[in-house]
């Protein structure tokens, strides 16, 4: 902010009275934002629950097509990234720049791993005509799975929901990677310290939420 007063620290915007007020405001804003994210996803969860209660057998059957190993692996990858973010904040609070940067980079790499795994999952489905929407036409056999068995009424709904949910979630992961790139650069420039690390903390909150959404998507889509 251009007209920051001289008696204020550089990060303090002029309309706030104190860093404390600014920090609290930013964090509260972030929590509110997380709530909007939850409600955004809630629409998908409603669709899932409604169709699941209507067609439980189809959903259970369709879920068999998803690989719990891949899903489980990705769950652990995301959990690890959550862990590194939390560590990063810990180091920021301790004024340990190196610890912060390393953990941010690790987080980024975990996010990347998640998307790579997701890519392999998606392409394995696409190869056999498991698409969201009109193109849905499972066919072929691989690894002893006969995809044609999944060409049943309401399987389309299951896979549409699967792709839309994981798609939106994947988009959030992508956004998170962008955020972490930005934060890492700022951290390298030494902009954060125990006196000011709000952006790190807020990106961390966002990232944990992305993790939480996945914690629910995983059992709902892959396991039950």
């Amino acid at each position, binding site marked *: 902010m251009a007209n920051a007063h001289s008696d204020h620290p550089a990060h303090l915007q002029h309309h706030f009275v104190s860093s404390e007020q600014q920090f609290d405001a930013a964090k509260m*804003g972030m929590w509110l*934002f997380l709530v909007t994210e939850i409600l955004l996803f809630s629409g998908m969860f409603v669709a899932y629950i409604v169709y699941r209660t209507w067609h439980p057998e189809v959903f259970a059957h369709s879920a068999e097509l998803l690989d719990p190993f891949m899903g489980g692996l990705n769950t652990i990858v995301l959990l690890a990234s959550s862990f590194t973010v939390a560590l990063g904040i810990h180091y920021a609070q301790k004024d340990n720049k190196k610890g912060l940067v390393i953990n941010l980079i690790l987080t980024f790499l975990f996010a990347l791993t998640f998307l790579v795994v997701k890519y392999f999952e998606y392409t394995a489905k696409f190869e056999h005509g498991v698409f969201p929407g009109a193109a849905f036409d499972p066919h072929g056999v691989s690894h002893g799975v006969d995809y044609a068995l999944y060409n049943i009424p309401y399987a389309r709904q299951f896979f549409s929901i699967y792709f839309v949910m994981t798609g939106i979630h994947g988009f959030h992961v992508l956004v998170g990677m962008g955020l972490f790139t930005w934060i890492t650069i700022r951290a390298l420039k030494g902009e954060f310290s125990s006196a000011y690390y709000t952006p790190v903390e807020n990106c961390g909150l966002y990232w944990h939420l992305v993790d939480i959404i996945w914690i629910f998507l995983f059992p709902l889509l892959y396991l039950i």
Partner: protein
Amino acid sequence: MSESASGTINYLNHDKSIKSWLLTLDHKRIGIMYLIAVSLAFLAGGILAILVRIELMAPGETIMSADAYNQSFTLHAVLMIFTFIIPAVPAVMGNFVLPLQIGAKDVAFPRLNLASFYIYVLGAVIAMAALLVGRIDGGWTFYTPYSTSVGDGILFVTTGVFVMGFSSILTGLNFIVTVHKMRAPGLTWNRLPLFIWSIYATAIVQVLATPVIGITMLLLFLEKFMHIGIFDPALGGDPVLFQHFFWFYSHPAVYIMILPAFGIISDLMGTFSRHQVSGYKFVALSSVAIAFLGFLVWGHHMFVSGQSATSSVVFSLITYLIGIPTGVKVINWVSTMYRGSVQLKTPMLYAIAFLFTFSIGGFTGIMLGVLAIDIHLHDTYFVVAHFHYVMMGGNVIAALGGLHYWWPKITGKMFNEKLGKIAAGLVFFGFNLTFFPQFIMGAQGMPRRYYDYLPEFQGYHLLSTYGSWVLAAGLFLILGYLLASLINGKKAGLNPWGALTLEWTHTTTPPHPHNFLETPIVTRGAYDFHLAKELFATGEEVSEVVTSTH
């Protein structure tokens, strides 16, 4: 910073470059940019409404084809709802007034505030592009499978609504944090102006409901272009589920429209009665109660859709309950005048008109909530009349009151009081003439969204069309004298209405770019006129502002 002729620096004259406006982070200037954008939207929606009314003057084709008509009322509604009424009060008056009333220098996140303005503009432009690109009809409710089977215009409208949703969310989020974290010392929750309480309640609804319209639009989009089969019955989807999604947002959205109006009315009632708003706590908390209950009634739009009777019953019951907190407000507004000192300036006339029109809208809402009655009235002009009574007669009339009330503070100029009263009269009369006949024809069975109708309804339609002209005349008159006041209006004093909230008592007119020279310290409630008797002792305009500038 340049010195103005009068020697005082204010937010309007301290930097006049275009860039300083377009890139401003000042909540007051952002409020003004919203005011201009929103007025344009209102004008566009209004012109379409007038065309709709002219078409309906006689059965058969009058001025346009059936397709043109169907697109006109759809676009009328989309413009009025998403580009006009949702942002109207919160984004215009909320932005301008909220930080001033709580004694803050700005909202908590000024940059976000500016971003949300441009997101709104972007969304509005995308939505309107639909006009050029393809067909959009079927009404603002986008019911599937019609919406997924006809026209590519839907692509733009859904994207536009989706984008504008973000703007609404960011504004709401910003306001909640501002109210929590930025209040001036001494301004406790019990002393907050009621306008703040209502904007706060509105913001909660914006934050909680709007994401759902986002996902709904996204799914609709995917349904139309990828056929994901969630809403389309031909693919095994469920069109009624779409209605749940849509109304989960759109019913709470009607409280996004009306709660800020309630806030304005409370402020007007207190100020122009120079009286403690009676039942302050009830009025404040009922806003929150309405915001909460508003989430539990969306199914009352779906009584004949084929949803289960179990849910209809629950939705119907909760629908009535909303009448209770609303009634608490109404009665407290009326009793604020009791033993007060009532001054009938133009803004107060709107508040009085509001009580009349909104109550009719509210009571007819209750009638629609009655299961057995709604079966007959659903999708008839009775519903059309109901929602115009609450939206036009509720929100717009209150917003006009608020606009007149804060106009001197915003512009530093007084409008012509006499023309103000005449226009208020025209609007009130024209409005009732337009929409009251619609109740009657609706109850007799005239369905809505009808391009053509049976001759027996023509008398009512004629009255309604004539009324819309009177209404339009009133609105254009307002536009005229408000613009004129910018050029030749009397200079406004610090506190022309004798109000006690901080924007009137602690800052200049128009306000300083940083709002307050010193952070105000609040020692009494927003309507504690009896604690400030000395301010009114001379009968002159009153203010506690530190008048010197630096």
